């Protein structure tokens, strides 16, 4: 199943269009998308859905620092079992070498970043991504990304789930609110709301308001 992304909103400022938002959430060759936020906000599924939508039949590498990735969730997001290769490494030095090796031949990569990876290494990796024209999603397990590394930085702010009550039902639809920033948003911070039914659909429900400053996430 391929993740579908579509927009359903009205432009809040002159000149903004739905096409812009579609292009925003697009993994382009040579560019990095950074996902920032604690586990639980849905960032992994967002990343996997983006990869599933654009990698086609090519291999997708997932650099798993914690060793926690459940492939079932990846398959639900549209990644084929034969496509997905998981690399487990939590040592920051070997992590850098492994990611460099992957970038030499794999075009679609999701990499968790372990603690202890230096900023200089991340910038070298960004340079390699540009030269190899790979598509990379970076997700620090703790903290943030250095500014300028990611072309598009998505920071999770809020998450809500539907479907559960006091002991009834089950998880169905998740609404996630992000702040988007980076060169992709031309230096402005923008708020993006996504809906995710947990399987194959990722829906952008709004995304043009400029995020108010100082609002805490989660």
């Amino acid at each position: 199943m391929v993740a579908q992304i579509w927009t359903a909103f009205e432009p809040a400022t002159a000149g903004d269009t739905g096409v812009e938002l579609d292009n925003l959430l697009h993994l382009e060759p040579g560019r990095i998308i950074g996902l920032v936020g604690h586990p639980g906000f849905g960032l992994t599924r967002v990343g996997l859905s983006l990869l599933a939508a654009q990698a086609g039949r090519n291999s997708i590498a997932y650099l798993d620092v914690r060793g926690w990735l459940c492939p079932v969730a990846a398959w639900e997001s549209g990644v084929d079992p034969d496509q997905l290769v998981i690399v487990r490494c939590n040592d920051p030095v070997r992590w850098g070498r492994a990611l460099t090796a992957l970038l030499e031949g794999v075009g679609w990569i999701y990499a968790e970043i372990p603690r202890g990876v230096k900023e200089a290494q991340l910038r070298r990796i960004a340079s390699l991504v540009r030269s190899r024209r790979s598509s990379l999603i970076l997700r620090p397990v703790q903290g943030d990304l250095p500014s300028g590394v990611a072309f598009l930085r998505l920071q999770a702010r809020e998450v809500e789930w539907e479907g559960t009550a006091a002991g009834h039902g089950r998880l169905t639809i998740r609404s996630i609110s992000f702040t988007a920033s980076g060169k992709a948003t031309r230096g402005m911070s923008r708020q993006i709301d996504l809906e995710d039914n947990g399987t194959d659909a990722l829906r952008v429900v709004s995304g043009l308001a400029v995020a108010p400053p100082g609002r805490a996430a989660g």
Partner: protein
Amino acid sequence: MWYPDWPLRRPDAPPDNPAQAVGEDNRVLAINALAANAGIRHGMRRGEAEAICPTVFTIASDPAIEAVRFEPVAQAIEELIPTIELAAPGLVFAPIAGAVKYYGGEAALVNLVAKEIDSVAGPGFKIGLAAGPFAAQRAAELAAPVYIVEDDASFLASLDVAALGSEELAATFRWLGITTLGALAELPRDALTTRFGPLGTQAHRLARGLDRAPQSRVIPPDLDVEERFSPPLENLEQAAFISRAMAHRLVSELRSHGAAPHRVEVAAEAADGTMRVRTWRNRDPFDEASLSERVRWQLCAWLDSARFRSGPGIRGGVVRLRIAPADVSDRGRQLALTQDARSVAEAERAFIQTQAIVGLDGVVQARPKGGRTPGDRVAWYRWGEPPPEVGDDAPWPGRIPDPTPTLVPAEAPVLEVEWDAGMPTRVRLGSRWVEVISWAGPWRDIGRWWEGIGPCDRYQLVTSAGAFLCEVREGKAYLAGVYD
């Protein structure tokens, strides 16, 4: 030359009991005389063999160790016939035209070879001589212990269609009234191709003693792959990595030309300048996995025989290793329409390099299988190895509904949860408590008391920081998954 019971030639195989060795596919690879007398045959499924002879002792074949043990036998044959080809530990092919002239006839040569290998590995061998490898192997199967085929066509004509090595194909031929290779050879080749495709063409060629289709592609020269090592390669684990990387390079390069190797020459140079060369052959084209296995077995055999002084081997480690295709066909792997050979080759190279950095167990894939929990529904396997055969057609009552948590800890850590009359109210995440906004469950799993696994209840807990899968066992809560 064939030792049918080679996988059984090991200290833990009982000499006075029927014994069999089975391969990874659980089919019988080797039997001793007692097992053969009991009715067990090569190629049988393990269950079938054990039903025929319930007292048979079963061993899992270990080709790497068998190849190391067979190295002295291969070297003994090489002293008489310089160009030998190994198909598997215990099975050697050798073109003998030159050796026959040198030693003065087939019988003289056979006697010399028999004496030599008997002195190294003892009796139990079989030798078949024929014009082609397929007929020679069939002759070896019938040998007691030598069978020299005068005329391949008439010899093959008398063989049952089971000699083709495919149960399914043989059953279909019998159903069509074709019971011997002679009857098969008389059929028009085009009719077999139309009905059975490439398998039918191949069967027809074998039945007529024409072992393989002539390769129809012009293969560019200089496809050898070579590596030099400083310091010399002596470590068996390093040998495994190197074998895989070099096999991948060779097969990928040939694949990009639409070709695949059937015979490969492995050459290693020792630190003292000694060269060792061995050819491996395969009935089907080598892929990365089968080729890297052969290269690894050969390196291990050379390094071990030098280490334990059981043969010349490679002393002081390997300083140069070369793998060259000795024979190719145009049966390269078919890629999907949306893939291109270069991208696939580049990705595979990247994964091999990554394996060298994080270890073989650090690069994995998974296949879906049945189960109740997210962890149960995954069958893991190392990248580059064949995926496990798993299915998911059974119902799983009590299974956690979709969506699946994206993050599932390998060992579920303790989760601090506050409860009020059986309802979760607060969860501790890190250093802070967060309120449970809503929840679903429990999904009860009664466990497997006969294995000591007690019951547990699973809940979906929703907080302002996200949703979590919580498992409660013996009154304690654990984090079973994060919906990230």
